[in-house]
């Protein structure tokens, strides 16, 4: 790199000679280490861990039953050294029976590695709060409650954190519209800000959010084989 390269016979660097794709090289060693570690944790906690997987980007994920949040998080904090809760979020997939997927991202400072723990719940089932394990979970859980409506049992102070004070609804749910239900404006007669139902002009009313292109062609569902039902027996033609 730079001007001192003499191999190319003085050709400037911006003349392309070969096009090589800049793709992150696969780190097999790290992948193997994460696989081994995932198997280790799954062997120790078989009561709660439903699945353990390593993504192609070398990210270890543990998929857990919701009863096992506090045991698994405490184990990862005390036994293996994942002392830092980097993130706590939720994912809304309305087509599933348990629509919300709660995701905990943990970081180990000593071993410089990350791990992801995922659980599931629906709108009404409460989940154990992780505040007793990681203090950082406090505001994250308030955010998940505010945005998705997931209730956390034993949370010290579960109230709204991002939405307005009288706001109704949980904005990050997939069935909550992008522009919301209310809009605010300043009303001169009453001399304060009022909230009124949202008014959209006709141009903004087209809610066609599906893309015309197929999203994951590699994961197409196999077409269901046609079932041939036994029909009525044919009468002998007389």
């Amino acid at each position, binding site marked *: 790199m730079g001007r001192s390269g003499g191999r190319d016979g003085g050709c400037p660097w911006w003349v392309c000679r070969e096009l090589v794709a800049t793709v992150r090289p696969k780190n097999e060693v790290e992948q193997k280490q994460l696989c081994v570690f995932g198997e*280790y944790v799954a*062997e*120790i*906690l*078989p*009561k*709660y*861990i*439903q*699945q353990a997987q390593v993504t192609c980007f070398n990210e270890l994920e543990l*998929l857990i*039953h919701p*009863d*096992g949040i506090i*045991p698994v998080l*405490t*184990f990862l*904090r*005390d*036994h293996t*050294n994942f002392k830092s809760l980097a993130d706590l979020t939720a994912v809304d*997939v309305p*087509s*599933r*029976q*348990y629509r919300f997927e709660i995701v905990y991202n943990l970081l180990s400072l*000593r071993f410089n590695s990350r791990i992801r723990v*995922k659980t*599931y719940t629906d709108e009404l089932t409460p989940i154990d709060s992780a505040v007793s394990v990681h203090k950082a979970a406090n505001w994250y859980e308030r955010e998940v409650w505010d945005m998705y409506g997931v209730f956390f049992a034993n949370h010290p102070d579960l109230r709204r954190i991002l939405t307005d004070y009288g706001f109704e609804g949980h904005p990050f749910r997939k069935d909550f519209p992008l522009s919301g239900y209310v809009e605010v404006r300043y009303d001169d007669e009453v001399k304060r800000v009022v909230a009124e139902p949202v008014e959209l002009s006709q141009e903004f009313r087209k809610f066609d959010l599906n893309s015309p292109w197929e*999203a*994951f062609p590699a*994961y197409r569902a196999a077409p269901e084989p046609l079932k041939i039902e036994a029909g009525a027996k044919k009468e002998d033609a007389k």
Partner: protein
Amino acid sequence: MCFFVSFPGNFSETDGLDMNSPHFLERLRILYTKILGVLQNIPKDAAYRKYTEQIVNQRFNLVQTETDVQKLQDKLNSGHIEEVIVQAENELSLARKMVQWKPWEPLVEEPPSDQWRWPI
């Protein structure tokens, strides 16, 4: 906690205590004995008990044989001696909780079949 400043004299880098006091090794010995005692309440075939006993026995043997704290830190390769003590305390509290949670039992409940499927 000053990890990167070197103090004159044989002081522990984190607390300023005299490093060769028998306090550290004594505390470690007590903690490891307690952990092994708590682990007896777990069934023998549980993976948690197997692996934790392995780790604790290994460290316990090192603590018994090595009296110099500096060399012990190097052999354990797990940070300063205070950090090793904190790790042992965490392991003890975890072991007590594990006895109640019993995580070696088989899976509580299978997820619904489409729960972990991605893409949807």
